[in-house]
């Protein structure tokens, strides 16, 4: 039974549609469904191997349709880059950059003193700062968002302050961090903390105020305890909003860390870019741009995956 149904789906649809169209044309648009059945019944089901091959071909077609346009875009970019750098100049050509990248990634984790480490260490150092700053921001920002969303008075008190501080570039907070912590590393982390906390507070608070009244009525009718209201209704309802906040925060944090590290120095991808500029290794800067982009993309995609797992609205 299942086999026949599957065969119909994979094989029978296209010719049936054709027949329907012909039939419709013949009958002047009336009763155009009737001719389908004999056409379907007359067609013998294809063998298992044939169907597998068709599935495979179909899958490859879909994959190709998905991958070809981005590949073409990338080729176009590299082509233009190649043309633009063909007659020398300061910007290295794609081929030179590629060679430099091969050399660089042959040993990404070497250590030759505090200021000369592999690109892998630099990326990891940046990720660590982002992780710590972002983690603390989440620990503070998400509960703060819940409080702001739950208690209107608190929101009225703090909203003007948040509105005032949010548009400030996080780098403006760097000197304060340097002053308070007296060291470069925690100052950079502090900058990450400041820039990632706002989206998390605001999105969580918005999520809390947008919990559907129906669900809260359920809570009241069932007379649920505050703890149950939080774990069974508030938290799941707010989770998608929270994840949006987290995604925005991570994005901003990864943007800001490069700039912060350029100012604070030490180990990190931002500092590394600045260091290579001082060494005039421009191809390394271009590699760093790609690395920063790819890491940012991976962070974003990972969180999108988590968000999709917990979104119940579109299911």
């Amino acid at each position, binding site marked *: 039974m299942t086999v026949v149904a599957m065969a119909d789906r994979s094989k029978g649809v296209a010719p049936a549609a054709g027949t329907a169209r012909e039939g419709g044309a013949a009958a002047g648009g009336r009763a155009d469904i009737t001719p389908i059945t004999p056409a379907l019944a007359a067609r013998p089901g294809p063998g298992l191997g044939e169907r597998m091959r068709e599935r495979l071909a179909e899958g490859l077609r879909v994959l190709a349709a998905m991958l070809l346009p981005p590949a073409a875009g990338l080729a176009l970019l590299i082509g233009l880059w190649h043309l633009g750098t063909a007659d020398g100049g300061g910007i290295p050509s794609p081929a030179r950059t590629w060679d430099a990248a091969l050399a660089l990634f042959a040993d990404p984790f070497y250590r030759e003193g505090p200021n000369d480490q592999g690109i892998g260490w630099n990326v990891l150092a940046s990720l660590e700062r982002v992780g710590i700053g972002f983690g603390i921001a989440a620990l503070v920002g998400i509960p703060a968002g819940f409080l702001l969303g739950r208690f209107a008075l608190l929101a009225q008190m703090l909203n003007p302050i948040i509105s005032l501080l949010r548009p400030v570039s996080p780098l403006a907070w760097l000197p304060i961090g340097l002053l308070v912590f007296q060291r470069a590393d925690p100052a950079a982390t502090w900058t990450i903390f400041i820039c990632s906390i706002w989206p998390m507070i605001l999105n969580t608070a918005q999520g809390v105020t947008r919990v559907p009244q*129906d*669900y809260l*009525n*359920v809570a*009241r*009718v*069932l*007379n*649920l*305890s505050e703890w*149950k209201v939080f774990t*069974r*209704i508030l938290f*799941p*309802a707010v989770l998608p909003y929270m994840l949006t906040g987290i995604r925005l925060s991570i994005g901003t944090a990864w943007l800001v860390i490069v700039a912060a590290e350029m100012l604070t120095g030490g180990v990190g991808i931002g500092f590394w870019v600045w260091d290579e500029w001082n060494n005039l290794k421009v191809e390394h800067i271009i590699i760093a741009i790609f690395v920063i982009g790819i890491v940012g993309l991976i962070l974003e995609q990972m969180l999108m995956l988590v968000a999709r797992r917990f979104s*119940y*609205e579109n*299911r």
Partner: protein
Amino acid sequence: MTKKIVQIENVGQCFDTKKGRFVALRDVSLDIHEGESIALIGHSGCGKSTLLNLIAGLTRPSSGVMLCGGREIAGPGPERAVVFQNHSLLPWLTCFDNVYLAVERVFAAKEGKASLKRRTHEALELVGLAHAETKFPHEISGGMKQRVGIARALSMQPRILLMDEPFGALDALTRANLQDELMKILAATQATMVMVTHDVDEAVLLSDRVVMLTNGPAATIGEILDVRIERPRDRLALAHDAHFGECRAAIMEFLYHKQLKRAA
């Protein structure tokens, strides 16, 4: 009719709006007896849902007294279970967990986990959904969701079941189906029910008394109709029943003649 479960005496409900005081209900007095089924019917905006929310305890009356089991209604309570129009199931919980949430609240203090699970299972079985326990609300049809809502309400073993247009969002066939099942469930559990509806047939079919509300603002009870039809009721047989026709006619007369509402 025996004991009074809910007593409503001279209840009025006002809301303060930007345009001033809005009187939704006035001078509503009604006794609801044990085992009785009551339908609240009236034009939209007449305050029938307001009255149901008052009985549920979701809102407090501006004047008058509301008693449940001889005690004042001060807020929602498990003895008054509500079935919402839009089912209001929590989308992140399975059907089982949605019902379990209610069961746990009412019985966790006295019973063990196995007993709570059994109660949940029985409630879902009562509405014919034992097979869909592990499904999430988005995986089942509108009629099934409403059944889970009813199971959730019944699982609390309430003294009175309050239903706010429970079948309003369903198609006619599903609605008829659920009405029949609801009648069976009410007969089996001997539950008391108050249902808000705007469907004349539904009101007559399901209830012992039809409470007709006048048009708002300041709506009140216009007439109360006793439906004297033997239970169990069969919708096909009733189609030719003289008394059923009379009841329908009386409600229609009230709604479309005495309380004709200008098209909004």
